[in-house]
């Protein structure tokens, strides 16, 4: 009885981790701004011009919470204003 209870708990924990870890690492977000410049750094150079609708891999938010580090479908990573992303 105790052994089966442990097994069930273990499965629940594993399933939870399997879903939780990728979600925390990155997620797919849509671009809501009409157009936005993709920069190599928040204060850096423009390395791309993106237009909506476009799906982006959202990686993280800057310390001042104004910028988002994203990766385009073409594999280019850069920073865009966080508010240009659609709300999750």
């Amino acid at each position, binding site marked *: 009885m105790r052994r089966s209870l442990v097994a069930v708990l273990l499965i629940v924990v594993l399933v939870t981790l399997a879903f939780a870890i990728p979600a925390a690492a990155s997620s797919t977000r849509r671009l809501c701004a009409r157009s936005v410049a993709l920069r190599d750094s928040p204060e*850096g*150079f*423009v*390395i791309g011009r993106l*237009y909506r609708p476009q799906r982006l891999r959202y990686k*993280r938010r800057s*310390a001042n919470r104004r910028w988002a*580090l994203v990766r385009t479908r073409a594999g280019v990573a850069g920073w865009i204003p966080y508010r240009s992303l659609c709300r999750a």
Partner: protein
Amino acid sequence: MLELRRQTADDQALIDAFRDGDDAAFARIHERHHAALERYARKVLGRGSEHAEDVVQEAMLRASRALRRDDRHIELRPWLYRLTRNCALDELARVRTDSVNVDDAEEWGALRAPAASEPDAVVESRGNVRDLLGDLAGLPAQQRHALLRREVDGVSHAALADELGVSPQATKNLVHRARTNLVKQRDARSSDCEAVRGDLLEAHDEGRRASAATYRHLTTCADCRHFRAGLRATRRAAAILMPMPLMVVAVGLLTGKAAAVTAKGAMVKSAATAAAGVAVTAGAVGVGVQVFGPGEPAPQSATSRALPAGELAKGKQVPAGTAMVRKTVALGRSGAPTVTLPCPAGTRVADLIGARGASASYVRGTVVGVSHSATVLVQPRPGSQTTSAVVTVLCKRPDRTGSIVAGRPQGHAAGGVTLHVKVRSAELFQRPGGAAVGSVRLGQPVRTGGAARHGWRKVTTDTGETGWVRTRVVG
């Protein structure tokens, strides 16, 4: 259904009586239909009832004249709706072009959308209404009627088919085509002038017609029409430069100086070819890569950390040590094209200034501040009909530290040293292991004041961002 048939039969009897000279019969027609027609007109007009009444009066006047003009069979009710719709559209067009300034029409309910509380949103909303009216007026009559009856009046396809005398499937096609045309028209209006001109230049060069999207844009853009007229004038002028061999030979035969005149013709042709060659060399022709070096007028405005003033207005001289390189790219259906733009000798890739008409980004191998040429992946905007895009890259000569940031102090901070990023890309952290504040890229010069913690180093980038990177990132 039975009621409708009975009403139709009554209408036919009233038409016959009116055509026989009984004016009271028309008064009866008016009494029977005017309320529904006013409701319909009000929906089309979207504003005050006094205009709806005027529209219905005008429609009734036209109906009375038309009914006595001949004896053809008329389905009265749908026919009156069509008349009312035409009169309402005439009224909208009159309002749009003559009497009411949309920008001043505060009483327009449609312009007071709840979401449009911000001034710029209100202006945009008014512009959208103005453009939509223009697009509706430009639709073929049947498409316009079908769309308005479906969208505004909510009429079923079966009833609409009855009105128009076509099958329900045909009305669906009409509404579908009308919607498609409105979308295409809106896209054409919003497409970038640079991209349209690029397409015109390519079509001109290849001796073919420009795309349908370009022609749609031309109907709404006077500047681009002027540009096309300029292209045609240039072609005519160029034709004058060309020697006409048959005429030259004829003149030569007549004067007995065929050899001399032919030689002269050859010289004229050579001069024209040479002039064209110079134009191409100078980058004056829109096909291929164009380079705008220091002192030349900038082809478009730009904002960049690589520019001394941080920005450059269109037409102003490109500053020393910088260049703008651009190319028009055809957007085929076969996938996203890449285009390579080489920077002039001694300069490095800086900002991607513009990719008008498409999404674009440097491919992974292109590194800002390091690469001598930029390879750009260009992707058509989803749903866009644009067939070409103009890609522009800013190039900058690096300073002695390798930075392409303009106006940066050349000296180092006291006790600090300049290092360079050794990895392709790394993140800059607020504190070791903390939140990210930015990124650094391969070859980027960073200044370090010596602050370090186990495996971490505090740096300031040439763009002024300060943060921590792992020690192995710089060297």
